[in-house]
């Protein structure tokens, strides 16, 4: 259950470990390790949520901040049956200080999204909430691709398009965007505040039935 220095962390990735980023979607968007999967930390349900996306036959290495939560996250995931090779000592700072590249992801607010749509721009939008949530209320033109089906169905979408990704806040959309990035999508925008913020702003939605 080790804290891994950057070189050991990179070596584990080279041997096939998947980097799993447990920070917030906002932190992930600001800077993250290429092809890491994003799953916001949760003490009660981290293992349960991991099972929605992550195969227990793969090995993982973790990125968690602040530093004292590295071993906590590792213990939670190992307890849920995951093979965890360790966590990055010093967090993303040590990665950057080693001269290794980071990737960013665009973020946007519901206000920005609404003004684009109101101006008649074509905005490709993926809503990753469950289908019953989508039916209850969604933004006109959104495609429903539930977050638990990204690995299976994500490749059906055109990865060249500049997709906006939305959920109810930004936790599931962040996880979905991370998976889509791993599938080769490069022009993603994470909508912060999600459908809840959209509704709170009083913007129009489509209701099924």
């Amino acid at each position, binding site marked *: 259950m080790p804290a891994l220095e950057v070189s050991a962390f990179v070596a584990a990735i080279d041997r096939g470990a998947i980097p799993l980023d*447990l*920070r*917030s*979607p*906002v932190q992930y968007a600001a800077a993250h390790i290429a092809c890491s999967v994003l799953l*916001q*930390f*949760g*003490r*009660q349900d981290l293992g349960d949520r991991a099972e929605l996306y992550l195969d227990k036959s793969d090995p993982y290495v973790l990125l*968690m901040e*602040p*530093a*004292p*939560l590295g071993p*906590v996250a590792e213990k939670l995931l190992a307890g849920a049956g995951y093979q965890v090779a360790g966590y990055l000592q010093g967090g993303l700072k040590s990665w950057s200080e080693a001269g290794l590249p980071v990737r960013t992801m665009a973020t946007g607010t519901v206000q920005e999204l609404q003004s684009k749509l109101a101006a008649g721009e074509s905005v490709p939008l993926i809503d990753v909430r469950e289908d019953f949530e989508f039916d209850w209320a969604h933004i006109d033109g959104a495609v429903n691709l539930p977050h638990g089906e990204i690995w299976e169905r994500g490749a059906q979408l055109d990865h060249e398009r500049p997709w906006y990704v939305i959920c109810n806040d*930004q*936790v599931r959309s962040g996880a979905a965007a991370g998976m889509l990035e791993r599938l080769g999508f490069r022009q993603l925008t994470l909508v912060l*505040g999600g459908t809840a913020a959209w509704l709170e702003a009083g913007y129009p939605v489509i209701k099924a039935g």
Partner: protein
Amino acid sequence: MIFKQISYGPDGCASYFLGCAKAKEAAVVDPLASVGIEEYLMEAAERGLAITQVIETHTHADHLSCGRALSEATGATYWLGEAARPLVTYDFTGMHDGDELRVGKVSIRVIATPGHTPDSVCLLVTDQARSAEPWFLLTGDTLFVGDVGRPDLLVGDRRLDVYDAKERAGLLFQSLKERLLTLPDHVEIYPGHFGGSACGGVNMSGKAASTIAFERRFNLALQHDDAESFGQFVVAGLKPLPKNYAQIKRQNLGLKEDA
């Protein structure tokens, strides 16, 4: 807003986690070493919040704080009443009466309430998303549910050479009557201790929250109209001194690093 009382039962200590989900910021008030910094970090991490403020209502004499460690782990500003400046050996950002700290839409107004200690403050919290009226008050060890803070824990503070227990009781009376009981009835009270804590007297309730109106009417200590009879009442109802309090206080003041 996000608000959670995080208590440690065996000592009857309470700490508080406040946050704004929109701004993704949080403050922790009186973090407890017995709870550990991981607990507070997890509260923030699982909500995607960054802890930006760590606030002490005073330097504690009955339990160890993990405020400085939490501030170091997060980069949060570490706040302590400015009156603690000559008492402690470490650096902090001083709070003055009337200061307003912000956590997104949540504002935290500092009310200087010397008495239990010279650096005691109460924190009046307003959720601007709900109302411009204050919603609740974190009272530290100044006002408890059913009781008031004790004025006789003088270790370290003697370096100021200003207060004795009787003077402290007078200051406490003034702080309570003039600064706290003048707040609106609806303001809720969340204290630094409840139940069997040794930081108050024998009338401290096991209930961990109250309101200004209820305490104004039913808190026995607050039924006294002058500082002298208030002081006599409080001193008569004191419990034994908290175990190891002098050592704990010294450590919280930075005078001694290890217990």
